[in-house]
Structure formats: C-alpha cells, structure tokens
C-alpha cells in the first residue's frame, strides 16, 4: 500500500505586484499526482526551478498547498491541525542540501542531534543522550562520544552531512525527504553518503523522497523516478524505464545532455 498519495497538488506563489495592474503569480507545482510506496525510494528529478523542492516541502507540510490533497497513511494531511499535525511531524523529516547551512554553527553535535527530541518532547535525560549516540553510530560517526562536543566548523563536509542525517533520523521517522543531499559534497565522499542512505532505508524501513538534478544518482538511489518540468511531472516510471526508454521529449533532452565518462560507457 502507498504511504503517500498526492492528488492534483498545486502550489502557486505570488511574485511581484506591478505598479498598475494586478498581482503576478508563478505556479511552482502544477497538478501533480503520484504515490510513494512503503520502503520505496522515490526520485524527483528535474532542473532548478522545476518545482521539485516545493513538491518535497508540500509533502511535509512545510508549505501549504494552494489546492489538492496529500494522503499520508490514508489521512489527508492538508487538513491536519494541532495535536494531529504534531504527531504527523514526528513521523516525517527532511535532509537538506547544504549541511553548512542546515546545522546551527553555535550548536555542538550533541545539541544539533538532540534538538528534535527536545522540541517533540520525545526523550530526556539519559534516554536522550543514549538516542543521540545511537543516531550518530547509525550514520557511522564513531566513536560517537568523541564528537558530541564538537562544533560544525570542526567537522569535514562529509561528517557534517552525516550529523545532519543523524539529526533527521533521531526521532525515528517513517518518511524522509532528502533534497539534493550530496550535491554540495566532494565526489570522493558522495558515494559513502549515498550508500549510507540506502543502508538506513533497509535498516530502519524508511520511505524516502529523493530530490536530485543528477540522473545517474537518481538511478543509483531510487526505485521509481518522476521527472519534473515547469511544475509538472512529465514522466514517471521505474528507473530502468525512465532512463533506458524515456518517452517524453524533455526526459530525452535531459538524458542526452548528461556528460558521459566515455571510456566506460558501452558504445
């Protein structure tokens, strides 16, 4: 069964008011419908401005949709308020592109990872500390104790993104939106983070929306891929179908633009 179902999702942002004349709008997400199955890594691929980040934020209700519905585990989350909304927030998390920005520079590693537990009143005292250490070990930051008092500037880019992932997973969410989680990282450490995320999906039974502009990364990470263009999903299918047998002209254009490592690709 699908964990998430969106139906005719739309998000319109007001842009600027002209001096004479009305408000202008931009449609960031335009009539988008899809399902994400349990334990699936669902890829949202597109260029900057295609609406993929907006779409991810809508699913977590970090943004309110203009119209349409989002069902999470059968419940329409666009209607949730108060206590129900809080309990929904406990089950979902987001991993951002830039660990330099997503971690508070004045927080130690411990503070950053413990914060979601504090905000959501999940654990305190020894239990809180135990869960922070467990989360850090899960992302292979070991020995975890030695990192607890470090600040972000004392960590490398790869370690920082691991801390950000630990922070997202410490509340044990069911669903994670990862928005370009490796695009700021050096090539040599990207693969390690991607492998880690796949392992965590298996170990924790996570469902994941994986947002990326990189089709090769999408192929490696995802089960199914949706291609977004100008706010709409123009193609959706298994990763093999989308990449080896693209139907939409935009998907074809995108695929033919990807630079290839010539000696390695089969000709």
């Amino acid at each position: 069964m699908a964990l998430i179902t969106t139906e005719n999702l739309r998000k319109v942002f007001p842009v600027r008011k002209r001096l004479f004349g009305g408000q202008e709008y931009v449609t960031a997400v335009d009539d988008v419908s899809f399902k994400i199955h349990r334990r699936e890594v669902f890829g949202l691929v597109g260029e900057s401005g295609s609406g993929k980040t907006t779409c991810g934020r809508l699913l977590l209700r970090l943004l309110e949709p203009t119209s349409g519905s989002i069902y999470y585990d059968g419940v329409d989350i666009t209607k949730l308020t108060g206590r129900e909304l809080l309990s929904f927030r406990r089950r979902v998390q987001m991993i951002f592109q830039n660990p330099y920005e997503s971690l508070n520079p004045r927080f130690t590693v411990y503070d950053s990872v413990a914060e979601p537990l504090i905000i959501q009143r999940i654990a305190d005292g020894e239990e809180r500390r135990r869960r922070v250490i467990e989360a850090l070990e899960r992302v292979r930051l070991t020995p975890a104790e030695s990192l607890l008092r470090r600040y972000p500037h004392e960590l490398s880019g790869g370690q920082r993104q691991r801390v950000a992932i630990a922070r997202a997973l410490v509340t044990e969410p069911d669903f994670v939106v990862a928005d370009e989680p490796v695009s700021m990282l050096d090539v040599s450490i990207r693969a390690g983070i991607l492998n880690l995320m796949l392992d965590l999906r298996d170990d924790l039974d996570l469902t994941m929306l994986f947002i990326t502009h990189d089709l090769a990364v999408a192929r490696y990470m995802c089960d199914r891929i949706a291609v977004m263009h100008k706010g709409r999903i123009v193609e959706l299918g298994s990763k093999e179908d989308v990449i080896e047998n693209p139907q939409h002209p935009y998907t074809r254009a995108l695929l033919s633009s990807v630079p290839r490592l010539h000696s390695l690709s089969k000709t």
Partner: protein
Amino acid sequence: MSFFEIQGLRMHYATSRGRVKAIRGVDLKMDKGQALGLAGESGCGKTSLGLSILRLLPNNAHITRGRILFHGEDLLRKSEEEMRRIRWKYISMVFQSAMNALNPVYRVGDQIVEAILAHEDITKDEAKERVSELFSLVGLDPGRAGQYPHEYSGGMRQRAVIAMALACHPELLIADEPTTALDVIHQKQIIEKMDELREKLGMTMIYITHDIAIISETCDVMAVMYGGKIVESSKVRDLLRRPMHPYTQGLIRSIPPLHDSVGRLTSIEGEPPSLLSPPRGCSFNPRCAYSRDICRTSEPPLRQLNGGLVACHFAEEIPWP
C-alpha cells in the same frame, strides 16, 4: 619551447592558523591548441593554480618557487603593468560564478566594450560590432547587449562571461568550473559552444572542474590534482581506460554510471587532506588501500609510466579494474 609551461610551482596562503600550502610543486606542459582538463576536489589547489597563472591571487598568497612560462617568458617576472596587458588579451579566465564576474550596474554589452577598448586600439563602434559578433558566437541575442545582468537568466549570464573572456581573442583560456552552477541542458550547450570556439579560434584551454565526465567529453589531456599536486596525467582516453593512481581509480569508481546498473559504489574512505598540515609522504596515503611504510615517509615523484605520468610508488602493481 612549449607554448605554455609550469615548472616546480609552489604557493601558499598565509593565514592566522598557518600556511595553507595550496600548490606544492606543480609541473605542467601544454602545446598550442590543446585542451587540458584539470580535475580535483574542492581544496586540492586547482583554482589556486588558475589564479596563479593570471596573477590574480589575493594579497595573502605567496608564490615561493617555480616558473610559469608563456611563449617562453616567465609570467612571474612580469610587472603588474605588463600583466594587465597580458590578461584578457593573451590569457583570460572564465570564473565559476557569473553573477560576481559581471558588474550589476552596467549594461552587459558596455562592460565587454570597455574590456576591449582597454586592450585594443579600435574605435567604440568597432568594439560594439565585435560585441555583437561575440554574442552570436556564444548563442546570445545581440539585441540584448543593452540589458543589465539581472535581466539575464543564469545560463545567459554564463554565456556573457564567456563572451567577455573571448573578447580579445585570447590564446589561452582558463575556464574554472564554467558550468557548475548551470542545469545540464545549459551545461551541454555551453560546453559544445566552447569546444566549437576553441577549434575555430585555435585556442588553448585549461578546463578546471571536479567533473571527470565533462573532461572526458571536451579535453585531450587530463591532469588529476590531489593535495596541491598533480598525481596523474595523460591523454584522457588512456587515463580513463587505465587509471594508474589509486586516487584516480577511487574517483572513477565512486561515480554512479547512468546507463549501467552497479551493485554498490565504492567510496574513498576518509577525507581530503588539510593543506595546512598535509600528511607526510604521499598525501593520499591515509586514504589509500595500498599504502605501505614507504608511502608514509617518502613522497612519490611524478614519473613516466605507460605513456602518462603518475605519482605513486606502487603504480605498476596496482590492478585495474
């Protein structure tokens, strides 16, 4: 005499925490018309190398050794005035961030006209004429030369910056991640444009990027930098067919392929070295699966092997794939 050559270049930045040794002995030789891809990760010294060539380094940078020979003349011995004449006219650079390279309060066309007039003895009308040609050349509508940078999209700005770099028909173009901020479709258009221009103008090019795939599509020769040094270089096809240095091998293995399924990617363990205190011996040794005692004590020189150059004590013994 080579068209362009770097010999034993060393450079560091003086910082409050000590010397950041960004270039730790680099040798490089290029023929006219060649395209060299300089690959490496952030902080490996590749951008510093580009800036050193044009002598555009910040004040805390110090070149302590080496020569940069352009037509046999050492650029490091030129006066600031002489360098000003060389920049743009003979050697120019495309920077990564097009937004910062354009002045927001001047019309794009005027900025390029000004750059041309600063270097060449032609009339303003002739310079304007050339701007129109340049715009067409890089695929911009010449009618938009009168617009300001904010009226351009990201892809258009990057084209404008390339047009500016080409304005005085330089012999050597240094392109530092010229397409990294762009979407793949724009990236492909710009790469193809630069390729075409290189052929047409007989330009020599140094293409600095972390993306090996781009190098494989555009360059003849590739050099891989790590820890402030070139650790491997050879013809692009040879290097990708049989990478010799464990770092190059690791990089290639960690890139997911688009059209093949892979079981599991292998990543390079650990992190790139700090250039504040680079490791003793081979700078890759803390991350290298093949490292032995000698790698921790003695720095491997860049030496000839299989028609290329490699800096590894055990390059002959390391298998591929």
